[in-house]
């Protein structure tokens, strides 16, 4: 074998960088957003939710009517230039009432979801993190509550507390946090025993650091998805209760109340009184549901459904 000099040329410098990461590193949020952006349906849901929010804010103001103003002459008028969505059997402007109802329905949905979030994450997080006997007791309690039929309990609470905005929110959150607590607890428990948390512990990480750096970022995706999906279920429950006469009371309006009032119009032909609230309930639920699905795919690509 001939050993020539050209076998001993020093390696070229620029090849040494081959393992360096060229693309900028993405944070957890950037990555999730990148995936969400590719999901047209979820983006549409997001846009619809924003539009609904905007209309709920400005809608009752731009129509030039008041939501509770009654007028006998203007009774049951079809949509026209002055009353864009027509009027109801008290002569109230449906356009104004629908967006006023949007405020109430969205408020109920968002507030109930937020309360569920705070109680659920705290309860589930503590149970999962502490583990052992405390976890056992806390979860036994949740298991029993979980067996209660949700809507019946809510109806019962509404009957006792009397109808109203505040009582609806209390009744919905009284049972709504349970699912969230179970999810968070399961997630935390699973992660607490994982290798990287053990590694962090052996390197002397304090509990708060582990919660902040490891447990929270890995649970946040699931939590956000859960919150997004609990908004429509709260809105739905509110509509359901209002439909049974247990919800918001006149002259206030929510979509459920308006749909209930508009029910006889199937026969009378005043379709606009039922159509607009019913359509908006469905649209809102649809928007939150597709956004929730999209977020689930974005935060957790492994569990694609």
């Amino acid at each position, binding site marked *: 074998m001939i050993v020539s000099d050209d076998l001993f040329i020093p390696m070229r410098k620029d090849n040494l960088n081959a393992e360096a990461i060229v693309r900028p590193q993405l944070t957890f949020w950037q990555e999730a957003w990148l995936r969400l952006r590719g999901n047209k349906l979820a983006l549409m849901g997001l846009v619809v939710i924003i539009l609904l929010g905007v209309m709920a804010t400005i809608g009752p103001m731009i129509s030039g009517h008041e939501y509770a103003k009654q007028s006998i002459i203007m009774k049951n008028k079809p949509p026209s230039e002055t009353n864009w969505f027509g009027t109801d059997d008290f002569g109230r402007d449906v356009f104004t009432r629908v967006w006023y109802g949007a405020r109430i329905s969205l408020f109920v949905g968002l507030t109930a979801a937020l309360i569920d979030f705070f109680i659920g994450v705290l309860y589930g997080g503590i149970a999962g993190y502490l583990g052992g006997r405390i976890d056992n007791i806390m979860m036994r309690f949740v298991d029993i509550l979980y067996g209660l*039929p949700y809507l*019946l309990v809510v109806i019962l609470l509404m009957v006792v507390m009397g109808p109203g905005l505040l009582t609806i929110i209390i009744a919905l959150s009284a049972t709504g946090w349970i699912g969230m607590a179970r999810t968070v607890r399961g997630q935390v*428990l699973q992660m607490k025993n994982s290798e990287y948390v053990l590694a962090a512990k052996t390197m002397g990480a304090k509990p708060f650091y582990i919660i902040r750096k490891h447990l929270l970022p890995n649970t946040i995706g699931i939590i956000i998805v859960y919150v997004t999906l609990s908004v429509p279920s709260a809105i739905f429950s509110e*509509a359901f209760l209002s439909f049974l006469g247990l919800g918001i009371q006149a002259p206030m309006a929510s979509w459920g109340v308006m*749909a209930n009032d508009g029910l006889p119009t199937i*026969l009378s032909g005043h379709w606009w009184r039922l159509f607009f609230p019913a359509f908006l309930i469905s649209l809102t639920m649809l928007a939150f549901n597709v956004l929730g699905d999209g977020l689930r795919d974005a935060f957790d690509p492994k569990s694609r459904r």
Partner: protein
Amino acid sequence: MLSFVFRRFISMIVTLWLIITLTFFLMHAVPGSPFEKEGKALNEAVAANLNAYYNLDKPLLVQYGLYLQKLLQFDLGPSIANSSDTVNKMIARGFPVSFQLGLISVVFAIVTGIALGVIAALRHNRLIDYLAMIIAVIGISVPSFVVASLLIKYLAVEWKLLPTATWGTWQHVIMPALALAFGPIAIIARLTRTNMLEVLTQEYIETARAKGLSPATIVLKHALRNAILPVVTLLGALIANVLTGSFVIEKIFAIPGMGKYFVAGINNRDYSVIMGTTVFYSALLIFLMFVVDVLYGIIDPRIKLHRKESEG
């Protein structure tokens, strides 16, 4: 297995007791007497007699004891708004109707939902798949009372195919059952599709194909069996969904079922009826959940029947 059933049974009893207690004390926490109507106070002697008749003059804990005692004999007590009627009689009248409607809806939802999910999975990413999933998303989003209104509007009022409301012949069942089943169909279809897609990639499906089995046998005998297992876990929640959902549907279609008595009870503030129906329905639901849990353990031998510590 037995210890699992036993533990599950104990937890069922505790949940049941909890809801009975909760219902009882919540109902008695309401201020005022159930006999006062629109501020009109009753004659004192009459009120005393009524209170004695309904045991309302005794201390709360004694009343609670009496209530539990009666419950053990399956006696849900008299109605307050209509003293000649009892909650037991109402259930005897209303429940068969609700049960019939509920059963038809649940069966319809399961069959349609699974069929839709399987078809969507087999034609993955094709037109039918997208259509089925659009139906599923709409089904989850549109409340049952909206579906019911649309059905009445078109099937009954415009095209006059079916009777608008009330109960009696088989034609009366179609619209309420459809409206009730719409949401559950969507949920089942989505779940079935997801599971089916996952199962179809498994190796034993490949093996079945290599053996030369027909596609129908593969789907029905090998894939579907495993794919619908998770649907069984959903059954409890599904039945709860249909039963409570039927309150609204029964109201819309003027069906003389349990929902009618329950909603009337709410409107009259007839506490014994609300209490009785809540306890009855809760007992029914909790029992069904128990049955579903046990069934699931029997059907799927892979499932460990002992609760693991890490289970969510």
